[in-house]
């Protein structure tokens, strides 16, 4: 793959490498695939009618990975990409997605990534998505991921969603529907600075008996940035749902947390917790008594919090 330094930097940040990874992959740069490979068990096919991929994971596939990172290094590029994942029964896979934008020009660059997962019975997926932006241009770096997870009986999905730096505006939508005994775990990490805005919206339907969902979001809002976290859990069967929003506020930033629990039967156990506040001064004091300066203490807490 021929990549510029900025593109390499993006792939390192979001996928951990700019080299060809083991397993199936598709690397997308400025709207085009620059490298694609399938394996015996994982078939990566470009869609015919729209931009994006159909990814088929065979029944019973174990310990395999798919990398599908996206880089945008052209200013003013706007794209919507549809990726659909069909995960066979009993399969266990890790999917590494993520997108980075380098913008050195005056126009906004936008990536809307729409990911749909159809997870078969007893299958287990781990989905890792990192978002990242940088570049000297005045144009915005805008990322709007939509993730839709359909979990069949006794399947499990773990989503690790992370936006650490440089994304000016984001609207993140995550929806999930769970059948009997299905499990969903979400770990979200968000950091905004400058005048960035981030909206993170979850809608989880616990339809199946003994289905469970656990959404844990941690975020830091700095400078003048604004964040909204909205999590709706709907329990229409005997089920357990938990959502948690823990935010550190700094400077003039704002965070809005809007929990919604919708229990349609008395057997639904739904919990929401939200805690928003500045770094407690006792936390800083404690670390200073261990020899750190105030600034060192602050960055320790921030880095630890987003881990």
């Amino acid at each position, binding site marked *: 793959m021929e990549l510029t330094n900025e593109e390499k930097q993006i792939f390192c940040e979001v996928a951990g490498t700019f080299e060809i990874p083991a397993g199936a992959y598709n690397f997308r740069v400025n709207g085009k695939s620059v490298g694609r490979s399938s394996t015996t068990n994982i078939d990566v096919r470009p869609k015919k009618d729209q931009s994006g991929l159909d990814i088929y994971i065979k029944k019973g596939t174990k310990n395999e990975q798919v990398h599908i990172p996206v880089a945008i290094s052209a200013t003013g590029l706007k794209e919507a990409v549809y990726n659909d994942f069909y995960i066979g029964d009993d399969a266990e896979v890790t999917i590494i997605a993520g997108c980075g934008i380098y913008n050195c020009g005056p126009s906004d660059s936008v990536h809307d990534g729409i990911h749909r997962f159809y997870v078969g019975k007893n299958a287990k997926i781990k989905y890792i998505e990192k978002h990242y932006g940088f570049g000297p241009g005045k144009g915005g770096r805008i990322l709007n991921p939509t993730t839709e997870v359909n979990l069949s009986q006794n399947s499990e999905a773990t989503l690790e969603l992370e936006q650490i730096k440089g994304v000016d505006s984001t609207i993140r939508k995550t929806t999930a529907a769970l059948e009997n005994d299905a499990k969903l775990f979400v770990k979200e990490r968000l950091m905004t600075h400058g005048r960035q805005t981030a909206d993170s919206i979850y809608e989880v339907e616990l339809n199946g008996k003994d289905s469970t969902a656990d959404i844990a979001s941690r975020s830091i809002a700095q400078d003048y940035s604004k964040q909204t976290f909205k999590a709706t859990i709907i329990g229409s069967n005997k089920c357990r749902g938990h959502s948690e929003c823990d935010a550190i506020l700094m400077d003039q930033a704002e965070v809005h947390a809007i929990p919604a629990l919708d229990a349609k039967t008395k057997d639904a156990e739904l919990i929401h917790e939200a805690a928003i506040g500045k770094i407690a001064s006792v*936390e800083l004091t*404690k670390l200073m*008594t261990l*020899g750190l300066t105030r600034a060192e203490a602050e960055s320790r*807490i921030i880095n630890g*919090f987003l881990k």
Partner: protein
Amino acid sequence: MLEIRNVSLKVKGGSRTNILDHISLRIKPGTLAVITGPNGSGKSTLAEIIMGIKTPTSGKILFNESDITTQSITDRAKAGIAYSFQQPVHLRGIDVYTLLNIASGELITPETATQYLVKVGLDSSYLSREISNKLSGGELKRIEIASVLARRPTLIIFDEPEAGIDLWSINSLVKVFKKLKESGVATIIISHQEKILKLADKIIVLENGKIKQQGTPAKILPKLTGGKDGTN
């Protein structure tokens, strides 16, 4: 080593304005001093003033002959002063191993970190635990104590180390305190616990921000038992 000269802390309003009232005190290396006294008598405040968390309205603090009254918490910590908080602090996102690394001021191996945990009756299974409300009060308190031991300070202040800690562990803490003393560390323990009071070279009784009495356990303990102090 540590000299407190005529330290007072006055606040505006509240039921008492003299939180600390002309306190003078000297602690030498290898000395173990226990400060006791009723709730609200100013014990923690005195410790916080020594650590630099609070600033006295008048008086001076000297450490190794130099005036540290206006020095920052960080500089005092680097000079060798450590303080184990009465109320352990939650540190979201920081696990026990990271905390002990920060406290040591250098990278330490998990084995070395575990040695500090063993001293407070914990084991290596705690290394990856986050310092949050998912730990019990007693566990947090022990980790707090381990964090100051990891600093290997020359002056160490423990604020009610017995609080929330079971009897078995208090016995092992007593051993830790004896070792510190043997190795020449100046130790101040704020405590109401008889086992700890008995270890003291010197007991200091605070009341209403003043030193009411001080002396050896043989002299002070008989006066405390039966009184409102020292019972626990």
